[in-house]
């Protein structure tokens, strides 16, 4: 089955019809999606800024990362669920929207980037986490992460423009 057929099939399900046509489903999903970004995006940003030595310098890195982690995972779950529903509301529209795929690609890269930090330089956080200045490998990771999330916001907003 081609990609086009899958999108068509998904778009014709009553579930997708409902999401597309009910008056409040779409705006409510968008609102949940963006408010979650605002409430918890700050934790991603502050985590990155801490590793860069630009914020919360007196708090050990491991504390910032560990204490924000459950909130970030909760937010990620909400974003993934609301994002999937938004995409399912009009699969033909989004399946052929280049910005939709660029956003997903960026999300994937940001995820891989986070995992390389988590299972890379972060494993030795006990040695460097209390210092205001993190090792250059960690700072490089944080810079890339911050950059990716900012680009992702632009790309995500641009989905509606294309």
């Amino acid at each position, binding site marked *: 089955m081609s990609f086009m057929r899958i999108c068509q099939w998904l778009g014709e399900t009553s579930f997708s019809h409902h999401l597309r046509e009910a008056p409040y489903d779409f705006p409510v999903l968008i*609102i949940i999606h*963006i408010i979650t970004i605002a409430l918890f995006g*700050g934790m991603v940003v502050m985590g990155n800024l801490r590793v860069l030595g630009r914020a919360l310098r007196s*708090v050990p890195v491991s504390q910032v990362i560990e*204490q924000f982690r459950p909130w970030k995972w909760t937010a990620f779950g909400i974003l993934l669920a609301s994002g999937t529903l938004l995409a399912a509301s009009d699969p033909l529209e989004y399946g052929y929207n280049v910005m939709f795929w660029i956003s997903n690609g960026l999300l994937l890269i940001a995820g891989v980037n986070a995992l390389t930090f988590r299972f890379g330089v972060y494993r030795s956080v006990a040695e460097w986490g209390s210092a205001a200045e993190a090792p250059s490998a960690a700072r490089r990771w944080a810079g890339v992460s911050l950059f990716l999330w900012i680009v992702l916001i632009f790309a995500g907003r641009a989905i509606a423009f294309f």
Partner: protein
Amino acid sequence: MMFLAQLLQAHPEALPLNPIARWEWVFPIVESIHICGFTLLVGSIVILDFRLLGICLRSQSVSRIAQALSPWIWVGLALQLTTGPYLFSGDPHEYVQIAAFRNKMLFFLLAVIFHFTVIRAATTPSADSAPLGWRRPAAFVSLGLWFCVLLAGLWIGNL
């Protein structure tokens, strides 16, 4: 300026000079910066309110977290106070007629005033050792006000 004014009067159908009203791609770009700005502004304030409520970063005193977050709250506020009015400038007559826009401005004003009065008082070093008391509801009010700002702001686009 005179020349420009005459030119515009002579050609009422001419494209507006303000980039955001002239080219359709300017709006989503400025709006993206606005989204980054509120992520920074509201995100930092949420962390501060969470600390007040004892949800995170408990090993650090409230005043210390407030001090550490303060510059980023200012950066976020500066971003919002530049991008916001600029988004507004694209079609001011339209925005003032939208109830959600007027509500957003009201909530924004209340949230900012509340932050720099009540929340500031709740996060001074002298309050650190006192029991939480009134500072707990204050943190909830702050969270609620910023939530209303976001909600009303998002609703502008849905009308």
